[in-house]
């Protein structure tokens, strides 16, 4: 059973290592997207996917 345990260990550790690497890279990039989106000026943010047009404040003294 030792060879079987070694083979199964290699397969599942390999898959787990790749999955964890993907998850870590995804979390890092999601944080990066949030950080960059925060830095965008308001009018750029309004153009973001899924954003609704923000109501403009009424002009004074028109």
């Amino acid at each position, binding site marked *: 059973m030792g060879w079987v345990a070694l*083979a199964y260990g290699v*397969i599942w550790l390999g898959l787990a290592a790749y999955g964890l690497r*993907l998850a870590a890279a*995804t979390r890092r*990039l*999601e944080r990066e*997207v949030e950080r960059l*989106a925060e830095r965008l000026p308001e009018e750029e943010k309004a153009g973001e996917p899924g954003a609704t047009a923000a109501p403009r404040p009424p002009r004074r003294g028109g």
Partner: protein
Amino acid sequence: MAGGRRASRAAEAAPAWRALPWLEAAAALAVPVALYLGLVWAPPERVMGDVQRIMYFHVAAAMTAYLAFGLVAVASAIYLLRGRADWNRAAGAAGEVGVLFTTLTLLSGSIWARSAWNVWWLWQDARLTTTLLMWFLYAGYLLLRGAAAESGGQAGRLAALYGLLSVAILPVVHFSVVWWYSNHPQVITPRGIQMAPQMALALLAATVALLLVGAVLFLERLRLEGLRERVAELEARAERA
């Protein structure tokens, strides 16, 4: 913060991502079932004994790799015809998942060979050598894609053409045991699956489990690529602003 969440929500509303939680749940269910069937329920093989249990996930990993490389060819062909970047991303994600599963196939096969043949590797065996050739071919594809991403333009199309043409190795690997000398056991032949019904069911369960795991990894890898492009786009917009 809100902009990032909005972007993330918009990306996750795309149809491909709706299947992801279902695929993850199906994989979480299929993997323990397949492990139980392969390690406990299926009987040991008469000659090799328990070592034969390596075969269930070894063959399943090879089939997942074949499918991933088939997907590289299809996505590359669509990208070359229509020029849509999302198909190019899909080809890259499938290529990486395919190389991962080929690596696992080679390693598990080598461990089986050590226990069954008393050697880690047999260069004269056509199945082993062509599978290694396939690994190098697609590792080269990933390197070419990396270089193409840096230079851009026509190099991306060249990488896609390489990905499309590389699919020719799949029938060579599969039929190598028929065409050339090979000690490799032939499980799936034109006459069907050559094993006891219980073993065939364990193999089927392992194949379904690894295909589901492969599909989850492929979609996660695709999402990562989408996020990378989103970061590049936001950086460009922040510089312009």
